[in-house]
């Protein structure tokens, strides 16, 4: 589905932050921001959140649980064999538990990140403005159907006033969230 976005290009992240405030004050919605590096204030202003920390915790916890289950089952249930007079279910399992918690947590966190971002090797994307990977910052505002001419003008002015180098429309549909 192609939607038209109004794109404001900036060459500084302060301009972007300023513009987001102004646009939101005027009752419009900022759809997305493209930048060459992460800007933490943008997340706050756009009220973005991620659940990745929780999933990572779950991965780690299940990694520990599954590893312990396997160690216990193989060493105590399946083939109880004494090594060096130690108890079958020993404290030294801690070492393998520790390492495998990290292994499972890391791999699954990486996979979750790719999955949530819908990223894979060789995926083709088109950016609203390719310069945003280098030195430009872009604000996207979705052009809704009920926008009147005055709405467009207000947005245009807001962007220009906050220091936008150019304002354009873009039909590029990067994946929608």
């Amino acid at each position, binding site marked *: 589905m192609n939607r038209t976005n109004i794109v404001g290009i900036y060459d500084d992240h302060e301009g972007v932050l300023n513009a987001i405030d102004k646009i939101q004050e005027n009752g419009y919605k900022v759809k997305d921001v493209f930048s060459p590096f992460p800007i933490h204030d943008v997340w706050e202003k756009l009220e973005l959140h991620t659940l990745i920390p929780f999933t990572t915790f779950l991965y780690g916890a299940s990694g520990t649980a599954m590893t312990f289950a396997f160690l216990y089952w193989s060493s105590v249930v399946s083939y109880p064999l004494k090594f060096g007079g130690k108890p079958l279910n020993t404290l030294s399992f801690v070492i393998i538990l520790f390492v495998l918690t990290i292994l499972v*947590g890391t791999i699954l966190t990486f996979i979750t990140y790719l999955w949530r971002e819908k990223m894979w090797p060789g995926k083709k994307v088109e950016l609203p403005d390719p310069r945003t*990977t280098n030195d430009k910052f872009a604000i996207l505002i979705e052009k809704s159907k009920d926008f009147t001419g005055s709405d467009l003008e207000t947005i245009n002015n807001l962007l220009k006033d906050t220091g936008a180098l150019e304002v354009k429309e873009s039909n590029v549909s990067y994946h929608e969230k």
Partner: protein
Amino acid sequence: MYNTRVRGILIKGNKSYDQVTSEILTPIYAPSAPTWWKISAFVATVALLLGVWAIYVTISTGIGTWGLNNNVAWGWAIINFVWWIGIGHAGTAFSIFLLIVRQKWRTSINRAAEAMTIFAVMAAGLFPLIHMGRIWDGFFIFPYWNTRGPLWDNFNSPLFWDVTAISTYLTASFLFWYMGMIPDFAIIRESAASKIRRKIYGILSFGWLGNAKGWLRFETAALLMGGMAAPLVVSVHSIVSMDFSVAVIPGWHTTIFPPYFVIGAIFSGFGMVLTLTIVMRKLYKFNDFITDGHLDAVARILTFISLIMGTAYMTELFVAWYSGSEYEMFTFMKNRVTGDYTFAYWSMITCNALIPQLFWFKKIRKNITAVFIISIFINIGMWFERYVIVVTSLSKDFLPSGWAVYKPTFIEIGIYIGTLGLFVLGVLLFFRYVPMIAISEVKHVLKETSTDEAFTENEKH
């Protein structure tokens, strides 16, 4: 964000974002590699081929081609394994410890340090693999369902811990390293002149967008993966040290081993980072990104770690005496401090505990040639440390009738040279095909740390 002028200006020359991108990408966009690159790549390939030949001889003939004997069952292979793993600690230590303590100066160096980690751990992993002798039975180490009971692995064996620890370390470091490169690959995808480059880096960039939510998830995931890898820095070398310390061999059976190994690993890793960044900065003229201040910071860390190393060496001697064990006393006093291995022992002390103390002098820290030479000494010293630990304890343990002398054969030396070739070749490929400095991370700290005014402005708030 918290900002301090203690470290001074991190990125010199008050660069624009575009300058940062283009300067870091210059070596990748160069039409052909420089002559020194080609020559070094050739030498490294020859070294690698020597190693491949030596490994072939080892596998086809057997471990008998090495200088090992009944007593000294671990020789160069294990020395080099521990040495490489130690070097491989710097990447994670750099990226993650310094990320956690919010040291912004790491941004110029972390990518190179992480790359070094990957190649060093790959070189390290080779040694236990070929040391197995029957490499085709190598899969026995994994707990798989088998027809022998099923008889499982001994999960209390440090050798098994080693396998899990090192494969986890390699996986975690690689994923963390690769993830950091995704935004930088996207820059090449969008800006490269050649279509082939756009295509290749496009595949590698996984369809990176750089939008707000993307950055949020990216930073969160990277921080979590870093946070999880941080304990690995401590655990991997602790586990390696347990290969030694759980054995009842004088000189090995000590509780100081895990912290002693970890700190030694970070020491050798930072030493190698210093060697590598000085070379990188010199050859690619990255003086604005890797400033004298960066090298100074690493040198200061090394001074401190060197003191810990010295303390550890003295602690070992003290405990040998205090334990009242004549075997411990013999190992340390008659077989290390004095005796057949005096040269190795005192080289270790000189290179690790004494020479780095020269970094106390500002003049030496500012003299890059001196810093480079000292970093080489650290690499050599750490090799001798592993030599002292592995060989002295094994060659003369409890029964004098069982004492044996160990000398490496050409095959063992060949494998070592081969891993050096592998490492250097890996680093050279990294220089040529990957952005050597994390571009987006440098940009992130650029505005707040590249001019004096930025600091003053920050202090006003």
